């Protein structure tokens, strides 16, 4: 469904992506793992057309989105949902208005229909009674859930998750993973999860691609990656050398 072909990207002389070729199968969850600052989020932003590659192709069902004009790109973007690393909630809007935002801007639904859908999402994500609060008044975990609710409200075919569990406590982390699994089963979307949460990520991803130094070091099913003998992958999974602290 989504295919990246020989993608290069440089920022201020620093090469971040050095010829990425990757296939993301339809209806499956693909995880992109790798060290912090390794270009995972940059890769994700290429998939939704927020960044354009210096060279290479980003194919979404055969269409190279890096060459589309804004109008055609927006048609493709309507099929996407994205959960940003910091949730990217509109801080001048309440939780309720944040979730209702895409419906108000992109559909002709009446306010009572919008209310029904938003209340449903608030309940699904355990956010009942939080609708009137502003993003500054809620915790990081709640922000992620509100971001997820906003991303899912339009029923996207492709969901992108940029480090959905970073900075969350273990219980909240599992709750978010369960939620992604549950939503995936329910809506059957194609998911791309950028993460460095090892080993949790193997529990939710069908496929895993390891990004290292701007290239895909290895990709395959979760089981394949866990059994990999590639030193880059094994070092990342094991967490490298540890000094004894105590």
């Amino acid at each position, binding site marked *: 469904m989504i295919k990246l072909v020989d993608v290069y990207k440089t920022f201020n002389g620093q090469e971040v992506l050095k010829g990425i070729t990757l296939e993301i199968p339809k209806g499956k969850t693909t995880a992109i793992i790798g060290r912090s600052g390794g270009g995972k989020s940059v890769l994700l932003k290429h998939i939704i057309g*927020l960044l354009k590659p210096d060279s290479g192709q980003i194919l979404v069902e055969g269409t190279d989105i890096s060459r589309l004009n804004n109008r055609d790109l927006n048609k493709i973007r309507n099929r996407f949902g994205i959960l940003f690393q910091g949730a*990217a909630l509109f801080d001048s809007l309440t939780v309720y208005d944040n979730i209702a935002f895409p419906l108000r801007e992109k559909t002709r639904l009446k306010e009572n229909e919008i209310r029904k859908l938003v209340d449903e999402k608030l309940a699904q994500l355990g956010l009942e009674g939080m609708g009137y609060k502003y993003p500054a008044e809620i915790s990081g975990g709640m922000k992620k859930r509100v971001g997820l609710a906003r991303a899912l409200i339009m029923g996207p075919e492709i969901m992108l998750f940029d480090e959905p569990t970073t900075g969350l406590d273990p219980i909240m982390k599992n709750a978010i993973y369960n939620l992604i699994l549950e939503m995936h089963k329910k809506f059957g979307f194609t998911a791309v999860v950028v993460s460095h949460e090892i080993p949790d990520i193997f529990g939710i991803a069908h496929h895993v691609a390891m990004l290292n130094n701007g290239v895909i070091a290895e990709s395959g099913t979760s089981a394949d990656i866990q059994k990999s003998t590639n030193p880059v992958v094994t070092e990342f999974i094991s967490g490298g050398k540890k000094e004894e602290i105590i």
Partner: protein
Amino acid sequence: MFIFILEKVGNIFIGFLKRTGRMVIFFSSAISLAVRPPFKPGHIIKQIHFIGVKSLFVIILTGLFTGMALGLQGYYTLARVGSEGLLGYAVALGMIRELGPVLSALMVTGRAGSSMAAEIGIMKISEQLDALDTMAINPVKYVVVPKIIAGIIAVPLLTAIFNIIGILGGYLVGVELMGVNPGTFFGEMQNRVVFKDIHLGFVKSVSFGAIISWVSCFEGYYTGFGAEGVSKATTVSVVLSSVLILICNYFITSVML
């Protein structure tokens, strides 16, 4: 050495041209999006409230004291040549043609311009603008266009209020304090101030309203990284808007006078 200096100057000049080009493209795209549907009058009204209504107090206060100072200076200057009767005309002309548009624009720059740059800058660094993009909503259309239109509408209205309050300030000092005849004060003003003067002030205030919202939105939209980037964008927006207002003021005066 000479080549080194030439290179530096050349780089600064190219940087200036690039930045100016980006600013012009930004403004042109905002204007072209403003005339295309969907139209969101609610967003524009909200921004007019923010730029206009919330600046009222500072505009009234500065307008009053500017008019009073002008009345005092004008009285002593005109009294030297025995023309105190022209005080109303002098105050009105000074306010309508120069001080009203310039000072109210500078006040709006300080109060609303900096705030607009900071708001958009924070939206940029917290990926809120990217979030709009991913929802297939043009961030320029959604965030920038209402602010530019509101600036163009609100600043002339604030200038009109500034002028009225300023003339009243001049009246207070000239008539109530210095004893100028009230009939002469308003009579001379009515006889001598012509439509051309008001037209000049109006053109200036519309242009300044566009400059403030354009520069502030541009600086916020292209802010650097983190809190430092937003802080720099805010400062630059105020400085650049103020400088452009003063430069444009001269050129508009010289062309229209």
